[in-house]
């Protein structure tokens, strides 16, 4: 009876909402989930497919299921152009009614991170942000599921060493990285691993201004002859690096990028020459996944997608955007069920994101089999440390080229603890979740 009444009231509210006026309606019967998008600016080429994916998944849920448990999600974009300044502006603009902040750039994440304890809005930064955010006791409001940059770095090392890191002894591993907080993220982990397993680690920074012209860096690579070149590249830097690698005839099978360096658009510019280039990824594009069929049916075919070329539906970044929105939607769903309410607020969503259970069954239910590895979060672990796969460029698209890889959870956990405490120390007084006993 009670639920019946609730549904009736909700229906009435919905009807009333549409009758009165559109802007007034969103206060009661939808959940407002803004996204700090970057469809403009120097990184727009990578931003557009990601944003399209995020948007289309939410639209599909709204069309197919009428939202999540009957509540529509109001997906809204605030354009930042990847600029930190605009990002903070967007955060301030949306925070009064938002249940989540999706900051998108490491710069914006770093800026917003300290404010979340005050404003009590969870940050959702899937696969980016600050790796120590995994420590949920320190970073109570920040989430970076399903894998952090340190997970990515560790998976790469496991891949090149075939699972036995000690075989790397005496080898030389170069890290070609953007000279920016994002590019410097994996360095502490690589340094720790190099000390432990006796390989030589060589960071090679690429300045923001030299992204497209990396001849100096590749000259250094030619001179040093590293056994592997790992890349933390972004935007124009990826295409620049791959072009230089082709030019200097660096063996492509020893060249592996992080998941943001595996963008179809970057590789298309080199085409066949980039064959064999690899990228680690926590997401895999699956063309015939049921969820993709639904997105095609409910969003793309009626012409509601912002995607310009329908072929992009199978690109790595578009499908990754879909998974990112899926993580958010699962967080909302979990919170709704736990708190027995339709309209979750930011604090309830925090619980939802902290108790994500994305196991194989759930992935199958969502129609995403093979697109993402199972993971779960807890109050102590805000990342989930899911596995990933190596994707290989075959000249026209990325295809999975390895079994599922996992990261060295123990080595990462130690480092996360140290760096998280360092952060808390530098920003004291910093609240720590004492209730969490995990």
């Amino acid at each position, binding site marked *: 009876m009670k639920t019946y009444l609730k549904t009736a009231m909700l229906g009435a509210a919905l009807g009333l909402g549409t009758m009165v006026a559109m802007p007034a309606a969103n206060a009661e019967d939808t959940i407002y989930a803004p996204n700090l998008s970057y*469809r403009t600016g120097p990184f727009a080429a990578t931003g557009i497919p990601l944003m399209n994916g995020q948007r289309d998944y939410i639209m599909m849920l709204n069309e197919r299921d009428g939202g999540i448990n009957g509540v529509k999600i109001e997906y809204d974009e605030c354009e930042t152009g990847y600029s930190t300044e605009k990002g903070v502006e967007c955060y301030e603009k949306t925070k009064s009614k938002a249940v989540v902040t999706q900051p998108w750039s490491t710069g914006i994440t770093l800026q917003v991170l*300290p404010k979340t304890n005050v404003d009590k809005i969870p940050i959702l930064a899937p696969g980016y942000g600050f790796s120590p955010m995994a420590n949920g006791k320190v970073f109570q409001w920040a989430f970076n599921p399903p894998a952090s940059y340190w997970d990515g770095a560790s998976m790469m090392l496991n891949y090149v060493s075939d699972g036995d890191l000690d075989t790397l002894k005496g080898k030389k591993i170069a890290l070609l990285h953007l000279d920016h907080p994002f590019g410097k993220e994996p360095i502490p982990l690589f340094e720790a691993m190099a000390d432990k397993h006796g390989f030589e680690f060589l960071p090679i920074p690429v300045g923001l201004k030299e992204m497209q012209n990396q001849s100096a860096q590749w000259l250094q690579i030619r001179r040093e002859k590293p056994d592997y070149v790992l890349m933390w590249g972004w935007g124009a830097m990826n295409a620049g690096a791959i072009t230089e690698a082709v030019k200097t005839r660096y063996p492509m099978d020893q060249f592996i990028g992080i998941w943001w360096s595996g963008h179809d658009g970057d590789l298309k510019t080199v085409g066949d020459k980039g064959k064999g280039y690899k990228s680690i990824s926590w997401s895999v594009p699956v063309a015939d996944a049921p969820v993709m069929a639904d997105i095609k049916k409910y969003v793309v075919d009626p012409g509601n997608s912002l995607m310009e070329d329908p072929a992009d539906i199978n690109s790595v970044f578009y499908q990754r955007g879909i998974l990112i929105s899926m993580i958010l939607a699962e967080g909302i769903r979990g919170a709704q069920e736990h708190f027995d309410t339709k309209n979750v607020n930011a604090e309830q969503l925090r619980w939802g994101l902290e108790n994500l259970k994305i196991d194989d069954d759930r992935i199958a239910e969502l129609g995403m089999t093979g697109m993402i590895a199972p993971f779960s979060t807890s109050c102590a672990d805000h990342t989930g440390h899911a596995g990933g796969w190596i994707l290989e460029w075959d000249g026209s698209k990325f295809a999975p080229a390895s079994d599922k890889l996992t990261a060295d959870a123990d080595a990462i956990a130690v480092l996360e603890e140290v760096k998280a405490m360092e952060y808390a120390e530098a920003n004291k007084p910093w609240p720590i979740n004492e209730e969490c006993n995990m």
Partner: protein
Amino acid sequence: MFYRISGQFKTDYRSDHALFRVRQDAVLMGIILLFAWVIFPFTANEFVFQALLIPVLIYSLAALGLNILTGYAGQLSLGTGAFMGVGAYACYKLVTIFPEMNLLVAIGLSGFFAAAVGVAFGLPSLRIKGFYLAIATLAAQFFLVWLFEKWAWLYNYNASGAIQVPTIDMFGIRVAGPTASSFVQYYFVLFVVTIMTIFAINITRGHIGRTWKAVRDMDIAAELVGINLLRSKLIAFAVSSYIVGVSGALFVFLWRGAAEPNLFDIPLSFRVLFIAIIGGLGSILGNYLGAILIVALPVILNILPEMVGLEINAAVVEHLNIMIIGALIIAVLIIEPHGLARFWAIIREKLIMWPFPH
């Protein structure tokens, strides 16, 4: 009518040299100060503080610093962003080395570091002029940003290479850090900006300001009438960089909360230069008007469609915004090449004559 100056006689030199020679100017200034000190802070919400009020003040201060160098002393500089960075990093080192230090003192001191760096890079101005000097300051820009990236001591060996503002209390009130309230931060910034503006007005009106203007208009003539060019130019670099350095410290500590080196890269220098040029070179008021146009207007244009209930795609709004601001900048520079400050001067003159123009 509203701006009638007849009947306001000056009977001594003192009143003839007063800051406000016309009573209405003083009244207008009073109204502006009332808005800035009382009405805005008590009516603004978090968004208005963080996206409009505080950034406009900080950018105005940076443009004021540049305007002293470029507008008053005639030395074109493209290194403003880097000098702001020097102020910010100096302030960061000061508050992390001496955590008990009062933030106001730390910001005041950090300006001196910027001034010293500014003077060092100002030395070539004695030999080179105009565009060539701009290139020399450009060198400062590139070198300093490179230094912020490579010198790990500057950011306390932080893994991300960025500086994070710690929580700072002053007399028991939280002024910086994530938990500081925007209200307090606004007053802090407003206080510093007010003091700096009074200082700038007086220095440009006085003996030093006059030597700067002489150097700007014709340096050989200035030298012939006995102005020491070396001294005059270096003072301009020092004062300008001091103000720019203070604005950089405010920029990071009272507004951004965190900063990475490339924040201080050339786009920031250009932004400040545009504010100074569009506002009006050689004026104090212009910096504020320029900052409102360049910093606040895009923010307002961004939220406008939503406020009137129009549903426009966020990316489209952003593109429209860039086009409108660009068109406005060009329009202003065509209609009034001397900037917005000159606009105001014309309006004021018209008001004085109104309703009986000759």
